[in-house]
Structures are given as structure tokens and as C-alpha cells.
């Protein structure tokens, strides 16, 4: 019997992968809720866009995510990603294009064909047609539902996989928190069908449609492990960027604000470590839903075959 500590996106994905392979597993933790940083994620499965600043494994392994989530019964929307910039930040768009692949270049007509509500607002854009998105809270709930035969709230004993995120800093001392802040808006007047990234020299923003006129706006990246409420500055900046995206958002209702700290290592890539009977899987950074499938598979491969995973940097008793 393997006990998974933590029931955020990492813990649930590992439990789900092990369970699917017939490995007896239980979870020490309650199904993820507002205390898990996965709760506040964007849910963009956008490996190519992330490649603008992330290391190569994020792009390569992130491509596996959409199929894995769909295979777990999670609704995945395959509508691609639209990337645009205000006219005065045109150089941000060309820089983003230089550092990414698998996109098409759009003019104003191309943008309005994809997202009619943005017609006439932006002259140039990039479209990443193979990217996808999901609703993180739905995904967590589906994983939990798929684990109905698995015990939750188990004692943390025996052979352990520690997937507690930032809480595992008591054992993983090189783990740090990177604060992120998000908002959920209701704006029935606006119809966007895919994640839109607004490149801006100071306030990069993404907006992810959640359906029924709901939009998730994110996310700040601050070198801090403070998990306290969203700040006025973050809200001001995100909302003014959102207003630049579309003025209809000025009339939106603010449904929710959220903030938490993402677990990250120095290179912002995940790690798998074995210390005796405990296997640690952590450091998903801003790539929780994008990389959890690949890391969960590596952990399960390691458990079932003893294979040394790509992200393993420590293996000792």
C-alpha cells in the first residue's frame, strides 16, 4: 500500500495514475479545496506559449497533458490559445513569436474570425491551434470521483509519496514559494471562447473562459511565499490590463479573488526525490495542470518498474 500525502493536483494525479495501474494506494489528505494552490490555477494546457520563458522539458512534457486529462474523464477544450498585445507593445509580440513554435500569425481579420468580440481591437496576434484548456476545479473533482475506491484521510505511514507542495518545505529546503494572484469575473456581455494572453511590458495578463460568462484572470508572479489575500496593486493592474483587452470587462462582476504560493525549485522545474521510504514529487511552479500528468507517470513508472525518472535529482536511503 502506498500513501500519497497531499491531495492537490500533484497528489491526486499520482494517486490516479497508480490506481489506474492497479497499485494499491490511499491518500493522506482531504480532496483539494481552497487550501490547495491548484484551486487557483488557470488550467491552460499551453506548452508552446509557456516555452517563451520556460525550460525545454515544460514544452516537451506539457504536450502530453491534454490527452491525459481527457483520459481521466476531464472535459478538455481544444480551442488553442490567442496571444495579442496592445499596439505600443508590438515588440513584445514579435519577441514572444521568436521564442515560441507551433503558432500561426494573425492579422486583424484573423483575430476577429477566431474571437468576434475582439474585432477591430488588435492588429496582430499569434494563434497556437493545438493548445487546450480545462477548468482546474472540475479536473480536481473528476480525479477525486475517479478515486472513489481509494481511502482519503489515511494516516501518513508506510511507503509514502509526498506531494504536499509548498508545505513540504520542512523536508525540501530548496523549495520556495512564488506568489500568484487571480480574479474570477462574470461578464455575460463578452464572449471569448479560448484563453487569451495579453502581452504587456509590465502587466502580462491571461484570461481563461470558464463558460457561462465566467472568466478567470491571472496571474501575478511574485517572489514571495505570502499566501495572504490579493493586493490592491495586483487587482488594479490585472483589471486595467483586462480593460485594455476589452472595455466590456469594466461592467463585469468580481466573483472571486484568490491568492496562493506556487511551489518551485531554483530552475522552476519539478523534482522527484527519494529519501528512504519517501518519494517526493514537487515544484510544479506555474505548470501544475500542464506537468502533473507527466510527473505522475514518472512517479508511477518508478514505483512499478524502478526506472529512474528524468526529474529525479536525489535518490538515497
Amino acid at each position, binding site marked *: 500500500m502506498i500513501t500519497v500525502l497531499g491531495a492537490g493536483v500533484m497528489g491526486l494525479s499520482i494517486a490516479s495514475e497508480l490506481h489506474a495501474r492497479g497499485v494499491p494506494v490511499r491518500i493522506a489528505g482531504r480532496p483539494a479545496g481552497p487550501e490547495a494552490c491548484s484551486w487557483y490555477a488557470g488550467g491552460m494546457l499551453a506548452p508552446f506559449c509557456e516555452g517563451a520563458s520556460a525550460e525545454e522539458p515544460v514544452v516537451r512534457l506539457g504536450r502530453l497533458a491534454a490527452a491525459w486529462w481527457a483520459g481521466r474523464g476531464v472535459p478538455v477544450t481544444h480551442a488553442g490559445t490567442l496571444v495579442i498585445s496592445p499596439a505600443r507593445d508590438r515588440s513584445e509580440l514579435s519577441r514572444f513569436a521568436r521564442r515560441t513554435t507551433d503558432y500561426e500569425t494573425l492579422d486583424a481579420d484573423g483575430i476577429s474570425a477566431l474571437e468576434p468580440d475582439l474585432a477591430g481591437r488588435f492588429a496582430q496576434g499569434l494563434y497556437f491551434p493545438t493548445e487546450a484548456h480545462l477548468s482546474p476545479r472540475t479536473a480536481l473533482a473528476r480525479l477525486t470521483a475517479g478515486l472513489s475506491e481509494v481511502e482519503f484521510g489515511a494516516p501518513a505511514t508506510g511507503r509514502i509519496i509526498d506531494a504536499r507542495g509548498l508545505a513540504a518545505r520542512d523536508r525540501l529546503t530548496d523549495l520556495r514559494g512564488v506568489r500568484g494572484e487571480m480574479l474570477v469575473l462574470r461578464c455575460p456581455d463578452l464572449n471569448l471562447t479560448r484563453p487569451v494572453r495579453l502581452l504587456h511590458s509590465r502587466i502580462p495578463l491571461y484570461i481563461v473562459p470558464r463558460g457561462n460568462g465566467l472568466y478567470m484572470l491571472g496571474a501575478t508572479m*511574485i*517572489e514571495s511565499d*505570502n499566501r495572504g489575500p490579493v493586493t490592491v496593486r495586483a487587482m488594479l493592474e490585472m483589471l486595467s490590463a483586462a480593460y485594455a483587452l476589452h472595455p466590456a470587462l469594466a461592467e463585469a462582476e468580481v466573483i472571486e479573488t484568490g491568492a496562493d504560493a506556487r511551489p518551485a525549485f*531554483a530552475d522552476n522545474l519539478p523534482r522527484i526525490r527519494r529519501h528512504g521510504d519517501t518519494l517526493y514529487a514537487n515544484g510544479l511552479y506555474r505548470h501544475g495542470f500542464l506537468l502533473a500528468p507527466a510527473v505522475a507517470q514518472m512517479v508511477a513508472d518508478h514505483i512499478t518498474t524502478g526506472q529512474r525518472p528524468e526529474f529525479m535529482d536525489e535518490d538515497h536511503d
Partner: protein
Amino acid sequence: MPRFYGTQVDSCLMLGTAGYPSPAILAEAFRTSGAGIATVSLRREGGGGQAFRELIQGLDVHLLPNTAGCHTAREAITTAQMARELFGTSWIKLEVIGHADTLQPDPFALVEAATALCRDGFQVFPYCTEDLILCERLLEAGCEVLMPWGAPIGSGRGLNNPYGLATLRAHLPDVPMVIDAGIGLPSHAAQAMEMGFDAILTNTAVAQAGDPAAMAHALSLAIEAGRLARAADPMGPRDMASPSTPLIGKAFL
């Protein structure tokens, strides 16, 4: 090599620590460039930024905390006091932003904050414009280093007013001066060093490059080239062509 408040620094390059793809890449940029000073902000990160600050402290370079993000003298003074406690240094890079869009310094609040901080024992590195009168006021306030901008923060436009900067350098030949903000390319940095500035501080040019470590290395080479050129006493431009081999005796028509 530059000397700030009695401390000799081994490099003319100072790097900011914000906006890198990861702390690992930030550390690599310091390694490849040999930068001698790291600036670090804490206004937004606050008490929760301890893990990141420890990573910066692990770079084994001089730390220069800044008051980035402060818009009033009061905020800047409070942030400086917090920085002194957190980092155990009396060095403070004083930024008081006067305009949210252009991020240009507020010269009046800057002098006010510099006066208070110098009186309180801080060693102040004020981020200022190239205005000579402002710089004189900052020196009167007790500053022994000046950090005039090249261009607005993050703009990467190089030296917007080379004439003004040259005038400032000529008027205050003995004050250590660092060009801060606006550097986008190694050539900008070389130009500033050729003009006789003592050091260059840049952040965005490195952090936002596709390969930050390579760009930091390029900047360090350009800065060294500019420093050597300055010491070699450049010839200066002439209005007329001047042949390097004599024409007399040649059969020119």
C-alpha cells in the same frame, strides 16, 4: 574598478534580479558576467520573499537593496529601513518614482528622502535624472554616488541624452556615477563607459533576453571594452579627414 562609499567592487557591471525566467538562470547570468553588485527589491515581495532573498545572498556579490515601487519619500524611507534590517547593509539604492507610466524619478521627493536617509546613516545610491542641479542637491544631501538614468526603466533605449550625461560627468569628475536604467544593448553600456561613467546597472536587458546568461556576458565584455577605451584616451571626432599615411611625395593630382 569602482569604489562606492569606500568599498572596492571588482566589476563595473551591476545587475538587477527581477524578471528572470528562473533563479537558476539569474545565478548563471551572475556567473558568466562576473557582475559585482546585485540590486534587490523588497517592496512588493515583503516578508514573504525570504527564500528568494537567500538565493540572492548565495550569489556571493555585494547586495544593493532598492526602494523600487515607492512613489513617495515616506514609502522609500520606510522601505530603506526595512532593507537595512533584512540585509544588514546601510547601502540603499533610492528610487522614488514620480510618474507611473514613464517611471521617471520624482526629483523633489528624491532629495527629501536622500536627505533623511543620509542623516540616518544610510549610504544612498540615488536613481536620478541627468539634471546637474538635482545631482548637486543630492551631493549636498550627503550622497557620495549618483545613478543617472540612460533612459526610462525597462525601455532599452540606451543613452537618451548623451550631451546631458557628458556635461554631468564633466562637472562632477570625482563623483562615482553609475548609469542606471535604459540600457538595452552592450553597445549602450560601452558608450556610457567610454564617456567616463564608473559602472552600469541593468536588469531588463539581461532578464528579458532570450539567453540572459549570454547577454550578461556580452554586457560585461562591452563594459570592459568601454572602460579600457576611456583609459586609453580616445582621439575624439574631427571635422576633416586626416590620412594616416602621408600624401606628400605621392603622385596625386
